[in-house]
């Protein structure tokens, strides 16, 4: 035994030796709940599996923890304590989605946990709304306030007047929220994400009968044609697609795949492509139809697949041939006709070839048509459910919980119309309008969870006025973001590294998988897991709610769900052992030997071409072309995504890869356009739409279309802590709330703007690296 180990063993007593044995430098996977902090060896590294929550992708992570010293406040006294601290996040090497890899945002997750601007306990508003006057209250009081409010609503037969607005929640958290709302008696659990997926889901449902997000097998594709989907940065599952991209490029001896990227802006994804085509905004579907026309005309399509697995081909063929000849497509899209012909041939002749669309292609009034036309390309080359093609990842076989029955208390209110529905389709503008008008019924209480509508919804909808009409707003945010700063009650959630939750990645990696997150460290502050708060509130409100939600803690609910999974996957053996393995591995996924058979022969998809005809439309834009001469192309920042990363200093200081800007916003303008406007790099300009204006410094961007200005989303917070507040501008403020009418997706790429000089407002911080490399790297 080494001297150090001897000393530790003696101080800790005999009980600790089990843990210490062989622990000198060994790194092991650990379930924190099974090993108390007193048993940790100073200097030893312990890894705990969890899941990343910096975007909705659901990558598996492992977190390095070590015993460390911290200062904390106990009874008003500052004391030094030893505690388990999280030191580093890495990708979970076993998780099938990201296989050990992680993006910049995932790496920065520790600055969510240890953020100096975290809310440390429940707060009740005392001053007027927006005045930022709050008092600390206890959890008992917080829950009492919540329960009184909800009980009162129910007694007045107004349970439907509770609205639960959330972001895209993780697997069982979402299930719990849905159960809570149904048991309480409100139909209004409503989900909003700025960069959402409603259009893609609808396109896949109409064409393939699957209201789901598709998994694209880039790794085994030979040719990839992507339409405005920044899949190497922020779109869907960037780490999974980056891994696939790396393999497509250099992972196969003798085969190097080609990536052609079509997008109005030269994005990071475009920069990695072999060819970039700056298409006219909103015309991605037209280009796809043009390509389809040539593939059909030249008989390059997969005839056997078309005959066996598709419907509506004849009408589609006629449409493509008659309406989309290359010359006309070229006029509409601004892609040269000969390029269109060449791409069509390359795409059809280098199979497996993949077409994938999203991002700005979906964010137009004709976004649904764009995606349908793009998916049709995959059907034409028969690339559905094949290696190197498009498939739908099966869900892990969780067993469903018994449904929550209607009760006399909930029957009436559950049948009230959902506030976000218009003729069966989701409409966020309608939701906000109804909040404002109080028709067909007024909202009494609004819960906000993992959503920040005052930052991510266009103010033109009248969000602030609508919120003003709602008497009681409760925020479950861990930070005082714009919307939490408007709330009457803030009940801060744990951050994700302190929490129980799980996620089934969608789109996944082709094999059934779920990642499970467990508390990696003890909660730093007097915060509570929102799921636990909901369970507490439910059982306090009444017996009927307790019957629907009988679990003491969310952890118990999760464990019951995994009991069902254990039964279904039929691995036999003891559940506790299975549960421990799940905790240690960070989730459950189909074992490798079973996976290969599944992903090599996924179920074939059938494809219906006819929606391309029925949903065909041209994009419309908000703002007169003469008054507002530029397209506004907003995009999720690789550092901040939709703004949620802006409070993390690592990400603020990270130079944007395309522009090298740090700590601020910018607007990308084509150098020639800038010359015409009389502005140069670093000059400040106004960007004005029919609905508002913001100012930002100019970056001369050789990858901007001359008629388009590009602005990243993420900065421009008016709250959200010291690193985010009062920094940069939020281009969402400019948006005209046009929608894709069928799916209800926000057409965030359809606004036009004008640009004019503005007074100087400070500097543009760029990291101008010295150009030391000249010839050597170009060879």
């Amino acid at each position, binding site marked *: 035994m080494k001297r150090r180990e001897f000393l530790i063993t003696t101080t800790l007593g005999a009980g600790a030796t089990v843990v210490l044995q062989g622990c000198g430098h060994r790194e092991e996977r650990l379930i924190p709940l099974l090993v108390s902090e007193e048993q940790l060896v100073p200097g030893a590294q312990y890894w705990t599996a969890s899941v990343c929550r910096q975007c909705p992708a659901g990558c598996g992570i492992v977190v390095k923890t070590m015993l460390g010293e911290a200062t904390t406040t106990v009874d008003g006294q500052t004391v030094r304590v030893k505690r388990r*601290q999280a030191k580093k996040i890495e990708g979970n090497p076993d998780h099938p989605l990201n296989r050990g890899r992680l993006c910049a945002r995932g790496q920065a997750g520790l*600055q969510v946990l240890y953020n100096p601007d975290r809310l440390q306990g429940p707060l009740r508003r005392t001053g007027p709304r927006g005045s930022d006057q709050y008092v600390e209250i206890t959890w008992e009081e917080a829950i009492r306030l919540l329960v009184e409010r909800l009980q009162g609503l129910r007694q007045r037969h107004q349970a439907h007047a509770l609205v639960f607005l959330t972001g895209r929640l993780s697997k069982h958290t979402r299930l719990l929220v849905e159960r809570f709302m149904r048991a309480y008696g409100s139909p209004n659990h409503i989900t909003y994400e700025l960069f959402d997926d409603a259009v893609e889901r609808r396109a896949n449902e109409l064409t393939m009968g699957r209201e789901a997000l598709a998994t694209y097998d880039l790794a085994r594709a030979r040719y990839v044609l992507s339409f405005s989907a920044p899949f190497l940065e922020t779109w869907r599952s960037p780490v999974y697609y980056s891994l696939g991209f790396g393999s497509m490029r250099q992972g196969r001896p003798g085969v190097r795949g080609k990536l052609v990227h079509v997008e109005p802006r030269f994005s990071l994804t475009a920069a990695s492509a*072999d060819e970039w085509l700056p298409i006219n905004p909103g015309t991605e579907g037209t280009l796809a139809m043009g390509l389809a026309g040539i593939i059909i005309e030249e008989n390059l399509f997969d005839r056997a697949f078309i005959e066996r697995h598709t419907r509506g081909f004849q009408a589609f063929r006629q449409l493509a041939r008659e309406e989309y000849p290359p010359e006309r497509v070229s006029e509409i899209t601004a892609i040269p006709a000969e390029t269109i012909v060449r791409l069509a041939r390359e795409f059809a002749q280098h199979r497996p070839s993949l077409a994938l669309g999203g991002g700005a292609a979906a964010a137009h009034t004709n976004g649904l048509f764009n995606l349908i036309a793009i998916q049709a390309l995959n059907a034409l080359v028969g690339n559905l459910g094949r290696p190197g093609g498009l498939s739908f990842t099966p869900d892990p076989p969780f067993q469903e919980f018994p449904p929550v029955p209607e009760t006399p208390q909930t029957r009436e209110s559950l049948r009230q119309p959902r506030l976000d529905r218009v003729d069966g389709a989701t409409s966020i503008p309608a939701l906000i309008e109804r909040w404002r008008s109080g028709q067909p019924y007024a909202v009494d209480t609004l819960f906000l969870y993992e959503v920040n509508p005052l930052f991510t919804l266009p103010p033109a909808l009248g969000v602030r006025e609508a919120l003003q009409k709602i008497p009681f707003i409760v925020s479950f945010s861990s930070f005082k973001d714009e919307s939490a700063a408007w709330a009457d009650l803030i009940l801060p959630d744990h951050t994700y590294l302190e929490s129980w939750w799980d996620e089934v990645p969608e789109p996944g990696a082709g094999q059934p998988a779920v990642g499970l997150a467990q508390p990696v460290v003890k909660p730093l502050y007097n915060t509570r897991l929102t799921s636990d708060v909901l369970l507490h509130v439910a059982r306090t409100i009444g017996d009927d709610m307790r019957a629907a939600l009988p679990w003491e803690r969310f952890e118990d609910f999760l464990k019951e769900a995994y009991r069902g999974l254990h039964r279904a996957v039929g691995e036999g053996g003891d559940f506790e052992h299975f549960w421990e393995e799940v905790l240690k591995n960070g989730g459950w996924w189909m074992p490798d030997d079973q996976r290969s058979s599944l992903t090599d022969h996924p179920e074939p998809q059938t494809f219906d071409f006819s929606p391309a005809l029925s949903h065909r439309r041209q994009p419309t834009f908000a703002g007169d072309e003469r008054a507002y001469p530029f397209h506004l192309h907003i995009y999720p920042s690789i550092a901040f995504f939709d703004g949620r990363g802006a409070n993390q200093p690592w990400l603020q200081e990270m130079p944007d890869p395309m522009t090298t800007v740090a700590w601020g916003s910018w607007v990308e303008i084509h150098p020639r356009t800038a010359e015409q406007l009389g502005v140069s790099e670093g000059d400040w300009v106004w960007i004005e739409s029919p609905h508002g204006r913001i100012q930002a410094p100019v970056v001369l961007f050789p990858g901007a279309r001359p008629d388009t200005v590009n602005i990243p989303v993420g900065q421009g917070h008016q709250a959200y802590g010291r690193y985010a507040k009062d920094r940069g501008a939020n281009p969402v403020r400019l948006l005209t709330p046009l929608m894709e009418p069928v799916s209800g997706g926000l057409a965030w790429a359809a606004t036009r703007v004008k640009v004019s000089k503005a007074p100087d407002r400070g500097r543009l911080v760029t990291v101008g*690296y010295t150009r030391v490399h000249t010839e050597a790297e170009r060879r």
Partner: protein
Amino acid sequence: MAKWGMVIDLDRCTGCEACVIACHAENNLPIVGEEESAKGRQHNWIRVERYWEGEYPHIRARFIPVLCQQCDHAPCEPVCPVYATYHNPEGLNAQVYNRCIGTRFCANNCPYTVRVFNWFDHHWEKPLDEQLNPDVSIRTRGMMEKCTFCIQRIHRARHQAEDEGRDIRDGDVQPACVQSCPTEAMVFGDLDDPDSRVSQRARSRRAFRLLEELGTEPSVIYLKGDEWVEP
């Protein structure tokens, strides 16, 4: 004795900056803030450089992650008056912080501009400091610092191998940047072992080194971007 080296495949690299943040988290790199960033004083041991080529619409961008090249003939080493920068037996260009007196000669002599000087003592807002890695010392004002190939990870891997009575295996050591890289563009390992992944990749026809003509003999080997040729 290993000869540590790295291969970075520019045909895979997307410029996503995951390596940059991973390095910050692993190596206790400070955040300097907007003011100091504007003066070019960001602390990065690895940076992603971006180069434009061509004109719209035929514009291209190339990314190249640049870190200390761990040169065999390192220009930074002979100019240090106090032997703070030296060559370790495994080919690492090491920096001894408590010897450094801050002349900055080394940074001046580095053709890759990968050395970073501490103009100030740095401060972590509480509780951000709880994240700091105890395996890596905090540098104070007046010290030069640089990429170490995550030497603390090399030590950990060696100790673990010793505990288990074996040699270090290929893949045991992964610097933070390599570990994170989403496209697997970066590979690290022993260049003296012809079977290691890094040696295999280094034999590519696309291999080159930065400013090779200076004779610095870097241990970082780049693979240039490839072209698609119609099969």
